[in-house]
């Protein structure tokens, strides 16, 4: 069993990248061209730091750190360095150092190089957190941060529309996956009761038996697949190559896209023991592997070839993890390293070619081996590893792959076939990359100057490493110290890994030979096949997932436009209709179906003639207001309504109300007359049908309000009229007054009145401001007119002031 040791180094190590990213702007100003070298010291130091942890981890320790962050939500800064995490941390930091050095030259003189460093450092730090997080939500946070960093890095050339689109696409695809992942993680923690990967792993039975297993699995796979560009989400990755070469190297081949693979590995022991997992992960991986390989050899843009071959490699990795056997996991770990080494080198090398010649199309390149010897060396080493030739590390990876496939209990032939085909196509792609630009007759495009040391250092180092590690594969350093702990972190238990270049005459060796033969064969004829294949591919693509994305996005935009047009058409009467309809539906529905009026409980005051007459006058006046064509008559009728109400107040014991109503009504009428007589006549805008329809709505609203009134009167919950009694009985002794209403207004509820007069004051200020603004506007217009008096016609209407400038 593993032994957990708290390691105080971890937190500073993991946060150092963020810290450094903050001072980059200052550094770039200070160090100028040396910034890259300086910044590269950090990943280098971290790389060394992680190397020192290798022995401890290999001996069965796991290093941890745990600092509470948001414990209420089970989110903590808890980290675990086990074999799997450490393995990726080494890749992340090692590649990081090389990429930063490379970029310092690749982007030399670019005005935004500082921003590049900032984002790349944020990315690196997030990636480290991602692979070393023990807390599932911490992983998620880092996961999202890498997506964001990727967005900015893909869109580094942000004024190009293509970059903008690619960046958005990558963000939306991985972002959607991220949301699914979040839901899946929340579900996973809910089922297992913990957010620590270590503990979740211990509860795998609980999860497998949970009814929520399948949705959780599906959600998490969505997240992992979209991040690692698996079919059908793969399309964002080739487009992401719009970013500069260091970004493609680092994020989109060596590290970020491996996050999904990492996560699958991390969760394999927890979720992987089901046939659903096996089928889903393996199938998706296999499809992606084949698809990537198939697409890659048809391309002529070197970066595209690399992009699709990366897809293929990612598919292979996912396939291997889906298989889940010990051997498969061992292969996955090793192949991850193999791929990072050769693909990283190739991306950088292609970047150099692009940088120096301005061309990436193999058809326009040739004979570069003489002019770019270092780049040639790098590409040679990398492609040989990619083709799986001994003694490169790639050879060992491929042998293991076949060994894994052949040893499978199920589908052995099928998967061996898939891998064989994939690898053959990889060989072809490798040959295209190596032969066409570097050999043959020199073409028009040629390097403009000597390749800088910073540029070729990375690819040559990586290619050399691919060779060196292949040669050293049989030593303990690789198998026992690196691969074995990683595999055992996934598969659990102690295991031994022995790698060797020579296994004797095995079926695997035969398959390797076959791979090479097939690959070379296809390379020989690939130029003739290409046009046809491209046509076919274009036809298929019309139905492919990238189009789905386009349709989804277009559909969304159209839906949004249509919906907004419908609901936000600018016409107030529709807005009012929505409000009224909602009221009728919610309030009316509830009243009718859940409340009702208790007719028998209504206490009715007997009718009297004067009141009836008054009511008749009031209703008649309302009728006039609604029907009349003249606005002055309408205003007068409205006044009659108001005065009738005042009389009601008199009749029903409310003298204060009556006085106020009279006064206010008079004021309102005066205001109406003063203001409205300058407005146009009542115009009849709407058709008869509209009016009828509005009338129906209005009647329903009236019925509803009348119903509510009666409903209220039919309920007698009130402790009789406790408040009224209190006011009536306390007014004299406690408030020293006799007019209860007035005492309520100035004392019991004087606070309301204070606010009320504030409302009034604000309204008056509003009236004043509205009217005065006209004076201001007119003054301005007059000033403008005198200013342009000489010109017969002002060309432009003068804009009103927008904001204070």
């Amino acid at each position, binding site marked *: 069993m593993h032994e957990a040791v708290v390691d105080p180094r971890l937190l500073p190590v993991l946060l150092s990248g963020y810290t450094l990213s903050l001072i980059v702007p200052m550094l770039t100003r200070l160090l100028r061209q040396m910034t890259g070298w300086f910044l590269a010291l950090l990943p280098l130091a971290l790389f060394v730091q992680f190397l020192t942890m290798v022995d401890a981890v290999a001996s069965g320790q796991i290093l941890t750190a745990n600092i509470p962050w948001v414990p209420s939500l089970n989110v903590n800064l808890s980290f675990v360095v086990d074999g799997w995490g450490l393995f990726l941390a080494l890749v992340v930091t090692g590649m990081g150092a090389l990429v930063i050095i490379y970029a310092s030259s690749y982007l030399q003189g670019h005005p935004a190089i500082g921003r590049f460093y900032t984002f790349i450092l944020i990315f690196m730090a997030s990636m480290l957190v991602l692979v070393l997080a023990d807390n599932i939500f911490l992983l998620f946070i880092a996961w999202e941060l890498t997506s964001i960093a990727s967005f900015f890095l893909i869109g580094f050339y942000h004024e190009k529309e293509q970059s903008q689109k690619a960046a958005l696409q990558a963000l939306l695809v991985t972002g959607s996956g991220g949301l699914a992942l979040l839901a899946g993680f929340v579900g996973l923690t809910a089922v297992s009761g913990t957010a620590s990967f270590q503990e979740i792993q211990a509860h795998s039975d609980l999860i497998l038996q949970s009814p929520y297993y399948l949705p959780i699995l599906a959600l998490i796979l969505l997240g992992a697949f979209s991040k690692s560009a698996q079919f059908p989400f793969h399309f964002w990755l080739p487009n992401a190559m719009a970013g500069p070469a260091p970004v493609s190297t680092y994020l989109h081949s060596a590290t970020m896209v491996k996050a999904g693979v990492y996560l699958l590995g991390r969760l394999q022991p927890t979720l992987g023991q089901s046939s659903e997992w096996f089928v889903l992960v393996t199938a998706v991986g296999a499809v992606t592997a084949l698809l990537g390989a198939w697409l890659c050899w048809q391309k002529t843009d070197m970066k595209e070839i690399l992009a699709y071959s990366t897809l293929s490699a990612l598919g292979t990795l996912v396939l291997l993890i889906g298989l889940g056997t010990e051997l498969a996991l061992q292969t996955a770990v090793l192949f991850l390293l193999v791929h990072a080494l050769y693909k990283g080198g190739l991306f950088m090398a292609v970047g150099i070619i692009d940088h120096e010649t301005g061309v990436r199309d193999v058809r326009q390149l040739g004979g570069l081996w003489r002019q770019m010897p270092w780049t040639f060396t790098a590409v040679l080493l990398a492609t040989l590893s990619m083709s799986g030739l001994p003694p490169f590390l790639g050879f060992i990876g491929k042998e293991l792959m076949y060994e894994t496939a052949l040893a499978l209990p199920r589908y052995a032939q099928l998967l061996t076939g898939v891998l064989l085909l994939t690898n053959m196509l990889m060989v072809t792609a490798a040959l295209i990359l190596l032969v066409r630009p570097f050999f043959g007759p020199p073409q028009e495009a040629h390097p403009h100057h000597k390749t800088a040391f910073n540029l070729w250092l990375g690819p040559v180092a990586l290619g050399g490493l691919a060779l060196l590690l292949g040669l050293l594969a049989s030593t303990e350093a690789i198998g026992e110290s690196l691969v074995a702990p990683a595999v055992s972190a996934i598969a659990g238990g102690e295991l031994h890994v022995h790698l060797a270049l020579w296994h004797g005459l095995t079926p695997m060796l035969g398959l390797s030979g076959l791979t090479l033969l097939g690959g070379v064969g296809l390379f020989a004829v690939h130029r003739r096949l290409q046009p046809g294949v491209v046509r076919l591919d274009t036809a298929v693509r019309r139905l492919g997932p990238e189009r789905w994305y386009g349709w989804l996005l277009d559909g969304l935009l159209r839906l949004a436009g249509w919906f907004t047009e419908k609901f936000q058409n*600018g016409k107030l009467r529709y807005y009012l209709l929505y409000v009224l309809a909602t009221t009728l539906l919610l309030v009316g529905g509830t009243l009718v179906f859940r409340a009702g009026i208790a007719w028998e409980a209504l206490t009715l005051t007997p009718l009297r003639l004067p009141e009836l007459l008054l009511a008749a006058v009031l209703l008649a006046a309302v009728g006039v207001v609604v029907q009349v064509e003249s606005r002055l008559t309408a205003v007068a009728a409205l006044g009659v309504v*108001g005065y009738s109400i005042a009389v009601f107040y008199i009749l029903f014991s*409310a*003298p204060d*109300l009556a006085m106020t109503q009279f006064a206010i009504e008079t004021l*309102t009428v005066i205001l109406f007359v003063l203001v409205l007589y300058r*407005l146009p006549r009542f115009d009849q805008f709407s058709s008869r049908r509209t009016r009828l329809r509005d009338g129906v709505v209005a009647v329903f609203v*009236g019925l509803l309000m009348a119903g509510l009134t009666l409903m209220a009167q039919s309920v007698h919950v009130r402790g009789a009229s406790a408040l009224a009694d209190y006011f009536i009985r306390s007014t004299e002794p406690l408030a020293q007054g006799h007019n*209860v209403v007035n005492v*309520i207004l100035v004392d019991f509820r004087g606070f309301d009145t204070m606010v009320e007069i504030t409302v009034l004051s604000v309204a008056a200020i509003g009236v004043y401001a509205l009217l005065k603004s006209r004076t201001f506007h007119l003054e301005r217009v007059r000033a403008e007119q005198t200013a342009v008096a000489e010109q017969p016609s002002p060309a432009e209407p003068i804009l009103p002031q927008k904001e204070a400038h």
Partner: protein
Amino acid sequence: MEMIMALIVGTLYAAGVYMIRRRSLVKLIIGLGLLGHASNMLIFSMGNLVRGNPPLLHEGIDLASLADPLPQALILTAIVIGFGAQAFAIVLIRRVYQRVGTDDMDQLIATDKPR
């Protein structure tokens, strides 16, 4: 009488709603006025309707027979607030007419057009 009050309340609301849904600015403001009256009458009918017994405390009055003073106080506040809002709205409409030059609400859709 309660039924009559309910009828009045309902009619006022119906008329108010009908008027604010016209396209004419002037009708809109008249509709708002009607709605204000409607709410006040609604609150008024929430107190028991008492005839001729205003809540004024004079010698020898039967305290139990007085009208509920609280709805009255509430309506007073509501009337005043309603007046403030209405005064503002009236002038606002006038300013809209001055600046836009139309009385037709359906013409006032510039702010809702996506740009």
